[in-house]
């Protein structure tokens, strides 16, 4: 122990630096660049839109399929109704009903053979084309005189 206050040898000792707290350098991991909010929103919106469209399309397809089925059923019903009505029409216009109506209501009778007139031909019908003969001299003179007289008298 050095009790000599005259000499404070501690003043001559190299002053030792006060022990310093170690410098703890907090090393933060390098933070990556954060995704920007607009991009996130855009992405979410896109997903939402696509998903909604998919769902909507499926729903629409189902609806349209149902609509097609219903219309097809309606069409089939009407076609069959058309067949039924045609059958009813045919039934009402059958030959026996027509005949009954014609004779009982309209007072018509079937055509009798006596209502047909028959022409007796001994041979088959033939067509003869009259041959135009060449006018002879006498005919020509006669024709000229006739025309001359007509011109003078003014009568045809």
């Amino acid at each position, binding site marked *: 122990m050095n009790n000599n206050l005259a000499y404070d040898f501690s003043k001559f000792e190299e002053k030792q630096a006060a022990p310093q707290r170690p410098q703890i350098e907090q090393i933060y991991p390098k933070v990556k660049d954060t995704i920007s909010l607009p991009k996130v929103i855009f992405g979410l919106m896109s997903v939402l839109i696509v998903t909604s469209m998919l769902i909507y399309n499926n729903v629409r397809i189902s609806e349209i399929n149902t609509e097609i089925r219903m219309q097809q059923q309606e069409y089939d019903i009407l076609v069959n109704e058309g067949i039924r009505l045609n059958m009813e029409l045919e039934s009402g216009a059958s030959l026996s009903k027509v005949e009954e109506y014609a004779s009982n209501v309209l007072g018509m009778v079937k055509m009798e*053979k006596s209502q047909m007139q028959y022409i007796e031909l001994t041979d088959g019908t033939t067509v003869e084309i009259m041959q135009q003969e060449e006018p002879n001299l006498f005919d020509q003179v006669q024709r000229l005189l006739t025309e001359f007289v007509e011109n003078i008298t003014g009568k045809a």
Partner: protein
Amino acid sequence: MAQTPTKKMKMRLNLIVLPCVLLLCAVLIGRVFYISMFEEYNGKSYALLAQEQQLRSVPIAAKRGTIYDRNMVVLAQSASAWKVILSPAQIPEEDHELIASGLSGILDVDREEILSMLDNKQSYYQVIKRRIEKSVHDEVVTFIEENDLSGIQLMEDSKRYYPYGNFLSTVLGFTGTDNQGLYGLELYYDDILKGQEGRVVASKDARGSYMPYQFESQYDPVPGNSLVLTVDEKIQHFLEKALEDTVETHQVKNRACGIVMDVNTGAILAMSTKPDYDLNDPYTITDPEVAAALETLEGDEQKQARLNALEQQRKNKALTELYEPGSVFKVVTGSAALEEGVMTLDHSFYCSGVIDVAGTKIHCWKRSGHGTLDFVDAVVNSCNPAFIETGQLLGKEKFYQYFKAYGFTEKTGIDLPGEASRTLYYTAEEMGPVELASESFGQSMNITPLQMITAFCATVNGGYLVQPHIVAQILDSEGNLVESINPEPKRQVISAETSEKMRMILEEAVSANGGNNAYIKGYRIGGKSGTAEKLGGDETDRVSSFVGFAPADDPQIAVLIMVDTPTAGEVYGSVVAAPAVASVMRDVLPYLGIDPKYSEDELENLDVVVPNLENSDVMSVQNKLSNMDLELRQIGDGTKVIKQIPQAGISVPKGSTIVIYTEEDYELEMTTVPLVMGLTPEQANRELTNAGLNIQLNGGASAHEDAKIVGQSIKQGEQVPKGTVVAVECLTVEAIN
């Protein structure tokens, strides 16, 4: 000290927890996989159970094919309909009365019947009514909606429409509740008409809604093919009309049938049995007498009797029932003898009215005998002893050979069900002299009308046994041709020369002596009548028939009419069936474009139509009527015609008298109509002329030397104006053959 978990800690956690989680997941997945794929419940895998629960297989009914006539007129067609189903298990008690009353009125079903269905609370499926149409369907839907009812469903059904009711009924047949053919063409061609059922396999969710994207598979139905028949709707109508008139006029006890056949191809142009039934209502007995008789029965007896009656009215008599052909069969015996050369046209017979065959006396229909006659006369007069002799000359071996060759020992093979499989006859071995004798003139045998007309066609068409058929084409649902049916003739039975002789002889049989009841002016018609005793029937029961063909120089059609047991008036084939054949021919021949060709005599005697003379000058009327070979009787001194009897448009024979009134205040001169029934046409004309009336002769036999008046349009004793036309019906009446 670390404030947050370190890497090491995290790693440690991952190493412990992750495997545990993975292990757990693996176990769960493995378990699910095992349960799904391998484990079973009640012998079935869960996969299968799930499928069974979710998948629904719904049949799609195929549309049944349509039946058309040869001109594509629809005779039978199917359309969708509905059936009304009750699920009593789902219907609360308080709705029973409302449902029973409401549906009873809409569906025309007994209210008590509906109530008894509703009482069956275990059931989910009770059919109230099938085949309801749209109007009724809409009423049911409205009823359900208005009353907010549950447990009533409308399910798809099918309905077959026959637009013409009982038209061609015994040929077409009808379908049953499952749309299957039950009779006639509907049965015979059921495989072709019904098509093939389709299926929709899809999964349903818990509420029963379809999940269209899951497992859906559809197998489209194949629609049935359609039939185009050889039948002509118009010819069928003519035949049915003639048969109905015959059945009514002659009060036929056991139905009548008719066939119109193309002589050269075997195509059936018409086929009918009367009375018949409505195809749209096949379970109703149409004969009022039979229906009344059924009402008197009870229980099982009534049920059985009703079934028998329904069966009877649906039978196609033309091919399912046998009959005795009688003298019509003589064309077979005669043609066979001519072909074999054992008979000639001028072979001489002597008929004394009876012939002895191996000790048995067989009488001719004409008890006094025909005297000496040649082969043609034998056919014209239908002499039994002449044909017995012909059969003897032919011999039983040859007779049976031709009997077989003409197709009487086998089915014709027509494409219709129910053809009689066994006809009744004697074979060569069984045939003694008496059997040969009686079969020679058409007794002691039972054949079908279809066999008879087919054989008849062979005698007149050059000798060819044609194949009768009723379907000409098969079309698919788009109308494309699938198959055309044109069968070849089966064989040649007789030569063309023999056939030509038969045509000449049969024409003579109709036109001889001025023309018999099948004769039509202007047409060359050949034919043969038959009147046979019924085997096993009452003594007085007869089968009357006639087979005719036209034109005789170039046969196109043959018509057979068979009347089983006429009970009113005469029973002879020439009186009952021949006029019906003439009626059919009169309509069919012009329809086929075969115009009448009148001989000079016929032209000379054609009726004339009375012209309109009212308001005309008397002088011009005199000239007009004179040119028409009509007589004039003037009442009054006026110069203008005020009234004429008969009226304009009525047809009268030449030589008739037209009465004209020329005073404004005229009074009709009246006269009493005399009785002319039973008189000859000449006698009737004289009687009516003496009474100041005019005669109009109807019937092909009006010029026949043996013709008699069998009907008059105005009854004896009635007071009518002078000049009135009285139409009379002429027939020849022969004794029984």
